[in-house]
């Protein structure tokens, strides 16, 4: 029954699936734009607070999504500092919450990868008198295939996230409902077949996106990195 529902391509199901992808892909791209250079910057820089920032990033990887949702809710609510923007209960609010959740994860994994690459490149880039920006750009570019893992981890965390986007999105039909919030709703209503069907789609999406990106990026091929 669940499988039949999953492959029926019901209009509402398709809309929810597309919205899930839109929110998470947008959040992952924004988080990658922040997290990848941040990870590379931490790898090439030496300053007293660096260790604390790395420790903080690692700690933030385990940030409870519900707390993030609550904070974003307060900030975006009508009485909050950004209430005037009217973003609460919109996909934009969901993207903001996901960016906050995903960025530390991407930055932290990127930092690990960039640290190893920096150990390889350090002498060369210093010898070639590369500026700090050039060093960061070089690490991000040359490590792009390794950094795919960071982006996919971010996507994986985002697509399966429910607590924060439930709070800031409100799970509104035809507006902010995504796969995870729909699963929570249908489970609450006792419609386990539909909830399970949505779950299958969610798993299928996560696997398909991972496989697709790996194939497009041609990773795991002998002569590439």
């Amino acid at each position, binding site marked *: 029954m669940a499988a039949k529902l999953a492959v029926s391509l019901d209009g509402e199901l398709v809309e929810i699936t597309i919205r899930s992808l839109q929110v998470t892909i947008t959040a992952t791209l924004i988080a990658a734009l922040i997290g990848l250079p941040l990870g590379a910057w931490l790898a090439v820089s030496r300053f007293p607070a660096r260790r604390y920032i790395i420790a903080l990033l690692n700690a933030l990887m385990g940030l409870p999504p519900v707390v993030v949702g609550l904070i974003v809710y307060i900030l975006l609510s009508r009485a909050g500092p950004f209430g005037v923007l009217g973003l609460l209960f919109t996909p934009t609010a969901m993207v903001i919450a996901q960016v906050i959740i995903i960025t530390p994860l991407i930055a932290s994994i990127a930092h690990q990868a960039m640290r190893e690459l920096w150990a390889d490149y350090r*002498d060369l880039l210093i010898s070639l008198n590369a500026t700090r920006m050039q060093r960061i750009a*070089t690490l991000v570019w040359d490590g792009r295939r390794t950094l795919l893992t960071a982006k996919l981890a971010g996507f994986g965390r985002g697509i399966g996230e429910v607590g924060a986007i439930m709070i800031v999105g409100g799970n509104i039909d035809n507006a902010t409902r995504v796969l995870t919030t729909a699963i929570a709703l249908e489970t609450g209503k006792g419609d386990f077949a539909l909830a399970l069907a949505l779950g299958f789609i969610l798993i299928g999406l996560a696997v398909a996106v991972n496989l697709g990106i790996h194939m497009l990026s041609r990773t795991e091929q002998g*002569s590439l990195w």
Partner: protein
Amino acid sequence: MQSILPLTLEDIEIRRNGKRLLGPVSWVLDGAGISILMGPNGSGKTTFLRAMHGIERISGGRIRWAAQAPEVQQAQAFVFQAPIMMRRTVRDSIAYPLRLRGVSRAQARSAAEEWAARVGLGAALARPAMVLSGGEKQKLALARALVTAPQLLFLDEPCANLDGRATHDIEHILQDACKAGTRVVMSTHDIGQARRLADDVLFLHDGRLLETAPKDQFFTRPATPEGAAFLKGDLLL
């Protein structure tokens, strides 16, 4: 472009964790040709080269160049003993220093292709640098260093672990670079290589520069017992 030489070293010293690695060393690098740094393992050859190039911080003394800092940094290059390979193709690896200097992609690639052909990597342009053989990697590192037409080139044992053919090719490239006006300072363990390439020899032992002499003088009449012992193949303790 103004000449960055002479390079004057005044009592430079390098210490790490209270241990003296090099110095005090005083020397003036000027003119043309190939200067070869010789000495046993741990004598400070690599540290000396890195200090001159500016990638090793000195603990004491002074390094003076004939030009200002930005010009000095742009006019020199370094080839490491273990060539550092970027995760790029051969073409993009050689073009990289030019791209850092703002040269257009097309011009940088064209120069890279020319240099790849000169060092015998013309057929490997599209290959990833990481999969090259040891000799090819060192040739790539040389091409990457020479593509910017440096006035001064430092090399740290560039032929260590290479076979005879690769060593011959690299020595040939170095002699060509020298004829084209690049001043070369290179360390080597290989006495035969020093005899083939050197115009003058610097002999280091225990972090101290014991001798600086023209090649013929060093190999026929070394001025120090340590130099003589090194040439005889004795262990220097």
